[in-house]
């Protein structure tokens, strides 16, 4: 009764904006525990962590809006990180372009298998994860390699400060704005949400569902590849296992932002708040001296809680599998 359009409901309002409340709560709790939590130095450190996760989370956001999922982003980021970290000294910054292209190709593979062959997205991307993870280890021969100190100057600009914050954070924020434009102002953005809400209806209304679905996976893998490059530039080394926990964090951030996993809703701005919340939890725990092994347990619980709070209980009677 309360859910009719135009009706005002405090409950609904609260539910829709609970993501801001949770972010404020998280940051509040940690700054009470440790007053230095909101100092410039700590924020600068945190922004270095936020920067690579942002493009990944924004990318997977598009896939989630359309009602699919991509579990391969961590592995794609690993491959991008390994190749960028290993070959940046030889190719210079062209490696960024190559790795973005790699992201596009990885997304095209996932997207075509899912959209054209109509395979379930989590299976395809789970397989892609296993393939790319193995590739990352094969390319790096199983160990992380640092960029030699003599050649560090090539990548040092990424962590230099511009207006008090590292350059990669500004790049990430620029990408967020780009995603926002795609989401709000383009036909692509509207089609993605239409597919997520009701794929059949979208197709009948003239949306080219196959093309749009492939594009969401391309955006997602490209975001993951950019995240991987940022890790290579930030850590100044190639780490084949960097992505193993990243997809958990990226998915948790999107969920914390209040995006429904059933598709059809969400926003890049929500994801931005979600990423900040996740990183606040992560670095807040570090600063409070919590055993880093707790991270997986905490993020698992956060993911369940976020998905449970935001999921629609009534309304659409989907068979949830």
């Amino acid at each position, binding site marked *: 009764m309360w859910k009719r359009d135009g009706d005002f409901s405090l409950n609904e309002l609260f539910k829709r904006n609970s993501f801001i409340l949770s972010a404020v709560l998280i940051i509040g709790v940690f700054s009470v525990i440790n007053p230095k939590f909101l100092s410039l130095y700590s924020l600068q450190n945190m922004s270095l962590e936020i920067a690579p996760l942002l493009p990944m989370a924004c990318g997977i956001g598009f896939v989630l809006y359309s*009602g*699919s*999922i991509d579990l391969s982003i961590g592995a794609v980021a690993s491959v991008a990180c390994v190749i960028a970290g290993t070959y940046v000294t030889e190719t210079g910054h062209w490696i960024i372009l190559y790795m973005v292209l790699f992201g596009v190709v990885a997304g095209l593979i996932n997207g075509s*298998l899912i959209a054209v*062959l*109509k*395979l*379930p*997205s*989590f*299976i*395809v991307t*789970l*397989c*892609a*994860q*296993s*393939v790319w*993870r*193995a*590739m990352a*280890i*094969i390319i790096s021969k199983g160990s992380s390699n640092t960029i030699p100190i003599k050649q560090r100057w090539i990548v040092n600009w990424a962590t230099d400060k511009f207006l008090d914050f590292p350059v990669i954070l500004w790049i990430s924020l620029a990408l967020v704005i780009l995603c926002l434009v795609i989401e709000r102002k383009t036909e692509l953005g509207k089609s993605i949400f239409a597919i997520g809400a009701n794929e059949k209806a979208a197709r009948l209304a003239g949306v080219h569902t196959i093309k749009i679905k492939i594009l969401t996976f391309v955006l997602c893998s490209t975001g993951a590849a950019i995240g991987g490059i940022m890790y290579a530039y930030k850590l100044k080394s190639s780490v084949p296992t960097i992505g193993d926990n990243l997809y*958990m964090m990226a*998915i948790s951030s999107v969920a914390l932002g209040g995006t429904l*996993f059933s598709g059809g809703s969400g926003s890049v701005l929500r994801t931005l708040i979600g990423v900040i919340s996740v990183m606040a939890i992560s670095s807040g725990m570090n600063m409070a001296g919590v*055993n880093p*092994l*707790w*991270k*997986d*347990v905490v*993020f*698992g*619980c956060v*993911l*369940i809680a976020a*998905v*449970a709070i935001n*999921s629609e*209980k009534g309304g659409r009677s*989907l*068979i*949830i*599998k």
Partner: protein
Amino acid sequence: MELFRKRNRSSQTIAEEFVQKVENEARSNLIRVYAPITLLVGMTIFFSIYDSHFFSLKNILNILQQMAVPLILATGLSFVLLIGRIDLSVEGVMGFVGSFMALLILNDRNANDFGFWGVLIPIAIGIFYGLITGILHVKLRIASFIITFATGTIIKGIAILLYDSRAARVQEQWMTDWSMMSFLGIPLITWIAVAFFLVCSIILNYTAFGRAVYAIGDNEAAARASGINVERVTVKAFVISSTAAALAGFVALIRLKFGQASLGDDQMFPCITALVIGGASLSGGRGGTLQTIVGILIYMELLNFLTIIGVDANYKKALQGIIIIVAVALTLSRGRKTIAK
């Protein structure tokens, strides 16, 4: 009259179409059942001719020992796959049970020696964890792959926290004995796996619960309409899957005698690969005892063969991903209204 004839003709064609559709389905079912078996026989013959070591008694025993853990896990997972869900938490549960068990029985990390209870308690916790996962999935209406992904991460994290990143080495004598023991030349752990497999086969094929599992996988709405308690059956399937994971953790500990949480890593994916190769469908309703064992045998033979001819472990992992996509693409029944994400 004209109209009547027309309608009559069209109804006839609909009936014919229906008959043809049923026949087609029966034929494709037949292919789905016999193709994996043919593949298994063909592979065995080909591998034996290619390398004479393959069909030697030593290598067969080797395969039988290696297949204990995958067989247990796949048997449990098959229930979850049959109802069209997936359980990504088995690796975490397996790692937890193995590492926690190592801490409770005689080991080099602490003074614990609970013996029998040290084995039983971790397994009981593992089974209970499946119950929690199932209830969360059903009550919160969260898609199974998200909830099991999260719960799997949580329990693996707890396992590592429990041994505080220094895993325990088992010093219990009977466990060392068990790993050596064999009956009729076949290792004891394989017998454990086979026993579990047989019990689960009976549950799946001869109980009301087993029939309900198939009914839900085939058409969940119809199963619900015909009075099956879908929620309860779903939770039970998750409990069976985590029971398998717990047992697999125990068996893996017997084999390795070192209680790391990474005991379960890279175990689930091969099992799903094997199940899909054997003919189980990821959208539910297809699969069963025969498919499970055939799939596992195909997978183990392939793995063994790749090792014999000297393929790198990482390439094997990459290959798994490709195999499963191809197998899913071939077996997925399109046009069914399933919401598989």
